[in-house]
């Protein structure tokens, strides 16, 4: 392994450069925001130009898109999906609902503040965000990856207990395996 600090830095730069151009998005439409993903991915906006494309399973994916509101039932699956994902991994919050509850701020079944449960790297404004906004979200994520600042996953590991406490507060029946990344 490379121990030298400078060499590590160079490796990081190369790694980040490579990572920013291959953003594979997990095909999981957690909420209504998923409807703007097909236009983003298909011919009109063609996100693949930026290296963004779909991935079928969590193990292959780099980015977890939280497309809007998360019901408590979905949250459980999303946590599981997120923990199955391999490093590097990023979370993009999509629209109002992920920031402060959005339209469903008084619903008994949706979470309101996503970053209490999962580390979010980029938020995209809108309800719903247009494909341009989605693309600019990915661009922002790329920028952050290139700068080495997209460290949500690291934050998650470091603060796992805090996240777990929040998660368990609304998921009473916690029957999930612990994933070993």
């Amino acid at each position, binding site marked *: 392994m490379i121990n030298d600090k400078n060499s590590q830095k160079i490796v990081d730069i190369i790694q980040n450069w490579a990572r920013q151009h291959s953003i594979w998005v997990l095909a999981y439409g957690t909420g209504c925001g998923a409807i703007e993903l097909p236009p983003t991915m298909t011919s*009109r906006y063609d996100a693949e130009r930026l290296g963004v494309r779909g991935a079928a399973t969590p193990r292959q994916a780099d980015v977890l898109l939280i497309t809007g509101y998360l019901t408590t039932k979905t949250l459980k699956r999303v946590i599981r999906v997120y923990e199955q994902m391999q490093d590097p991994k990023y979370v993009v919050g999509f629209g*109002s609902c992920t920031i*402060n509850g959005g339209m469903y701020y008084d619903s008994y079944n949706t979470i309101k503040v996503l*970053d209490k449960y999962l580390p979010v790297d980029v938020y995209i*404004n*809108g309800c719903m965000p247009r494909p341009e906004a989605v693309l600019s979200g990915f661009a922002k994520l790329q920028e952050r990856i290139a700068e080495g600042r997209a460290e949500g996953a690291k934050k998650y590991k470091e603060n796992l207990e805090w996240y777990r406490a929040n998660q368990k507060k609304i998921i009473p029946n916690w029957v999930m395996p612990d994933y070993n990344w």
Partner: protein
Amino acid sequence: MSFFDLKGTLKPLTALKQFGKEPHTITYPKVSKEAADRYRGFHYNDLDECIGCGNCSTICQNAAIDMIHLEGIEGGKGDSGLRPRVDHGRCCWCALCVEVCPTGSLSLTKDYLYVSEDPDSFLWTPGKDNPGGKEKISFFSTEETSLNVFQRVPMTEIEGTERIKSFAEVVLGYSEDEARAEASRCISCGLCTEVCPDHMHIPEYINAIANGNDADAVRIIYDNNPLPEMCGKVCTRRCEDVCAIATRGEAIAIRWLKRYATETAKTADIIHEIVNPEIKEANGKTVGIIGAGPSGLTAAYYLALRGYGVTIYEASAKAGGATMYGIPKYRLPLESLQKQVDYIQSIGVKIHFNTKVGKDITFKEIYDHYDAVFMGVGFPDAWSLGVDGENAKGSMQAYRYLYMINSGEKVDVGDKVIVVGGGNVAIDAARVSRRMNAEVTILYRRRVEDMPADWEEIEGAEAEGVHIIPQAIPIKVIEDEKGNVKAVEYLMAEMVPDERGGRPKPVAIEGSNTIIEATAVMAAIGQMGDYSFMSEFEDKIKINRGRFVTNDKQQTTDPKVFAGGDAVNSTADAISAIADGFRACKAIDEMLSKK
């Protein structure tokens, strides 16, 4: 189906014909498609136009809009001083806030791009955080699209030609359906309560009317106004000037709604039943009140509710003061006022009629006898014109004229009446004279739009055939050989802008003398006080420019004496007097309960 289908295998290959065609891909971020002309993007708020009514925050089903204080924006007349802030973590860009914005200051723009890693950066104050949004406004509301109802439910009135035949009330009042419809236009912002001198609970009682609960409306109204039916008929209604709806439409008919609610209580007994006032046990303290005008009655009513023994001394035969004697009966019928006075008496207020302080009883007696004194003495005297021939027979004070007519006396004014002045008294005198079958002309120094009188009154006068000559300055009353008024000579005036930025001044044009025939001339250019009854207290109770000097609790320079109404404030309307009375009541209560 055969195993090998040639057509079905080859047909898909026609996709190849797309090869080489120009793609319709928008290569964002290199190329960006502009949003549509009607796009619902971020908010923009014109901070100067916004009045902080908060209707946007009320309609927002996502509780996304907060009303906050912004630096540099002060509240004031018709502005709450608050401005909306949008939480983009809640907003769904439905633009309902835009649709209900009464001023049209809030709109949506073509901007929609915002990406951030900081979830706390999604609170935006439109207009402050995006001053450039003004150029990109795309979704806005016009009078046509707005969800505010800008048209007032019209009030039924008697025809102009019909109403000069009698003193019957001109305005007929809303029917129940009309009142509900009118009340439901209100957006309950409460900006009106700020300018109401009495700070009546306007949104609350309008809402009660809209909900079909008239009794609650009456109760809310009586909370700080014991003469609401009078106000409902003749109030100067400054509230309607600042109504949020009035920025682009017709103000809510706040006055007519109050009138509607209070008229549902047809007698004093019914008022008592509905309001069901909680009268505190007598506390043994007494308050003497001089003048049964609006301020005196108000102070008396609320003091009596608080357990004080209240006695009013009134020089005339009836209570009501200027509202009884100064306002013609076609605006405020006697029965209506009587009902309200009866109600006030029914809770234990004693009124000594025909008792003029200074003549029938001395001020000192009252001062010594009571724990506190309230003076609502009003302005019983009027300014004279100060022109030649003013003492001719048939030349009189409009205020005296109204007093006599309202007292039931007969006054002969002939068939050609000239009224000088542009205030409500002038219009009242003119319209009363029309009912006496006289032809009436109003001479006013300035333009019609400068007239201090209520615009509805001016319109009413015109509909009844009153002739208004604006920019006319009377210089002489011409007498005939018997000493009767024969004509009035006046000069035309031109409006000269005031150099100091005040309103334009009328300046007489030399040689524009005009003579107009007349059988009576009435001066309605202002009234003044008469404080001779308390001459021995001149040192203790200070008077400045014809008015009592009071603090903000209506207390005069003598701590035991309070004053209100025309003798204190210069607004010269009943609601200010009521407010004075209410304030004085609270101050007296505070003072006496401490002792």
